[in-house]
């Protein structure tokens, strides 16, 4: 060791002697930080950083992972005889973390409800498999979770808090240079940011909305197989999946090797579908496979027309209600009923996944029955408005007659009296 380093170590020792008395320490003394907080990266670990670390908060020290003797404040702390391991190689990390986290009896002492299958899941993941083959560029535990300021998952600032997961994944997966050797796209994060799932999560704050790990798994991260994509989506989108399973598309996509839901909806850029996506128009998904005139194309067009019919019905009914409302008529009940018609339209759009005209038509008819009623309510409101104005006109005529009569009576009285 260089003289300057030695001098520095002695200085640290002196400092420690001064401060030791006033320092309140948790279970074990962790003197490693005394020096390491003053070093430059990559050796730097400040106490401020370490204070956020969940392991530190639970009473673990640097030695818990790195070995050595944390009670010593000099170079003796890093003695091999005390079990010092130095920097852990990337390949060793999962096993090291797993030495506690895969030990159920051990973890029970700290948090009995924490899962202990992360390591066994990890070895099944793409990351785990590549690591086993010797590729140390893949993600290991610390890449996602952090290392010396590793926060609990429920901590908003944790890199694996639901809102932050996608960004953490994108650190590698959106880096085209880094991902070059693997030959997979690096636009997933960019595409995901355009999706409704991202909007629900990041903008709407809905923590139940899917992020990367929802569909790919977290520790066992792998893309779902082409044949099993719809299983993943069906965890939330139950109805669509059930209809798809019974539809002609299931067998057709399977034999064509097409990835289920992803075929039309994309995997990462899951944008809000529109009614134009169904049918034979320029934005339709159906025409990508179906030729004009074949039975699929006809069904697509029928479904599209049915949806359009209901949508137009709702729009025109809304316009009528709006007209009634802006001239002062009370139509709140009709508006509530209209919500049910909108529900029917949503159901019809789900029914599209049966890829048959029947179910779509059924839902559309339910909706149209309601719009007929709401349109009637709107017409009634406008008729009532007319009735009121006619009644007003009539009573105004009577009032005018009375006023005229009064006026003439006054005139007569005063003319007579001179």
């Amino acid at each position, binding site marked *: 060791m260089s003289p300057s380093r030695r001098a520095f170590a002695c200085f640290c020792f002196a400092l420690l002697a001064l401060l030791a008395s006033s320092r309140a320490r948790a279970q074990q003394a962790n003197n490693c930080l005394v020096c390491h907080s003053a070093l430059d990266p990559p050796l730097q670990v400040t106490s401020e950083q370490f204070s956020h670390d969940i392991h530190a908060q639970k009473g673990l020290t640097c030695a818990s992972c790195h070995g050595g003797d944390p009670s010593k404040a000099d170079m003796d702390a890093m003695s091999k005889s005390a079990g010092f391991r130095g920097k852990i190689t990337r390949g060793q990390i999962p096993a090291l973390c797993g030495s506690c986290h895969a030990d159920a009896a051990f973890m029970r002492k700290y948090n009995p409800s924490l899962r202990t299958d992360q390591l066994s899941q990890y070895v099944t993941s793409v990351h785990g498999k590549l690591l086993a083959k010797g590729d140390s560029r893949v993600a290991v535990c610390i890449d996602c979770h952090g290392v010396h300021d590793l926060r609990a998952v429920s901590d908003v600032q944790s890199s694996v808090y639901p809102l932050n997961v996608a960004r953490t994944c994108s650190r590698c997966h959106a880096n085209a240079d880094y991902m070059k050797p693997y030959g997979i796209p690096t636009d997933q994060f960019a595409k995901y940011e355009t999706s409704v799932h991202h909007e629900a999560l990041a903008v709407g704050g809905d923590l139940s909305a899917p992020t990367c790990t929802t569909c790919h798994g977290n520790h066992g991260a792998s893309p779902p197989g082409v044949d099993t994509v719809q299983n993943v989506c069906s965890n939330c989108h139950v109805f669509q999946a059930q209809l798809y399973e019974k539809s002609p598309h299931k067998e057709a996509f399977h034999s064509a090797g097409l990835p289920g839901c992803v075929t039309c909806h994309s995997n990462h850029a899951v944008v809000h579908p529109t009614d134009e996506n169904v049918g034979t128009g320029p934005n339709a998904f159906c025409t990508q496979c179906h030729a004009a005139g074949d039975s699929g194309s006809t069904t697509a067009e029928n479904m599209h027309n049915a949806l359009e019919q209901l949508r137009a019905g709702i729009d025109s009914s809304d316009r009528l209600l709006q007209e009634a409302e802006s001239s002062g008529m009370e139509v709140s009940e009709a508006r509530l009923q209209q919500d049910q018609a909108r529900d029917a339209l949503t159901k019809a759009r789900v029914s599209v996944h049966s890829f048959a005209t029947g179910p779509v038509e059924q839902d559309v008819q339910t909706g149209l029955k309601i719009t007929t009623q709401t349109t009637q309510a709107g017409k009634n409101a406008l008729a009532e408005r007319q009735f009121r*104005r006619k009644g*007003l006109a009539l*009573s105004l005529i009577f*009032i005018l007659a009375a006023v005229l009569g009064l006026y003439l009576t006054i005139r007569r009285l005063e003319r007579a009296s001179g």
Partner: protein
Amino acid sequence: MKLVAHCRGWLDERFDLHSLAKPLKKKTVPVHKLSYWYFFGGITLFLFGIQVCTGILLLLYYRPSAGEAFESVQYIMTRVQFGWLIRSIHSWAANLMILMAFLHMFSVLFLRAYRKPRELTWVSGMVLLFLALGFGFSGYLLPWNTLAFFATKVGTEITGQVPFIGHSMMVFLRGGEDVTGATLTRFFGFHVALLPGITTLLILVHLALVQKFGISVPPSVEAEWTASPGSAREMKFFPNFFLREAMAWYIALGILGALAAIYPWGLGTKADPFAPAPAGIKPEWYFLFMFQTLKFIPSKVLFLDGEVLGILLFGLAGAIWVLLPFIDAATRHRGRRIVLGAGIFAVSYIVALTLYGYVAK
């Protein structure tokens, strides 16, 4: 008509209707080019009568609890036959009544009808004006919609700023520290029992005073008539003025009906005490000039809180206004010009700030 004559005779035997009717038969109204202003008091009274009638009808269906008030007004507007008409007339007539009351007060001021011996008529009239504003404030909350809830919150908050007694006044008005269902029940009690009771008594006093002292004549006309006694003109109250007043009342009724049918009063959205206040909350137009003034006053003036200063100024202005006849008399010749100046200033100020309050965000 034999039956009518018979009934009249029967009553006359017991109550001496003749001597009761005599002063009314003799009652006259001066006639001159400013006589049209005499209608405004009567129209205000007529609109009050409309309010009592439509109010009683609304009482048949309205429910004064936070959980049901909004729904009951919605019920009146949508389910009850002609409920929309009764409720819209009630809301429109409320605003028109307050407008007429202001016009009546200003016309009395500019025509100087408050002079001796009519000082107490003026004082009772001013109290009636304040009662009318109280009616407006308490009634506005009753539909329990968002605008009403927050307008009441702001209005009672301002009351709470009065020095010393402000907080107690606010708690008294609100029925607690905050605006809640308790406030609604309390305002309902004010609106249908307390205020009508006091107002009815005061109207009787006000009318009795008018009857006692007769209708006043503006000074300019008075001068004319003293100069040439033959030019003084008057008409009998019954039937001449009464028929004219009936015409005016009928026309007012027609206008009310038209307003109710063409511009029915809206429901708004149900009040949610936990939701934040919507932007740009303002009170009804008759409080707007005061509200806008408070917004203009800087938050600190010397050592006083700006809002407190505003409230004190308006309190002072109100007190001066009630005492105008006495100020006029005490300042002799200048009195006329002082009151005229104050009147012109008040009208311009109120109109300007009300318009500004509407246009401002």
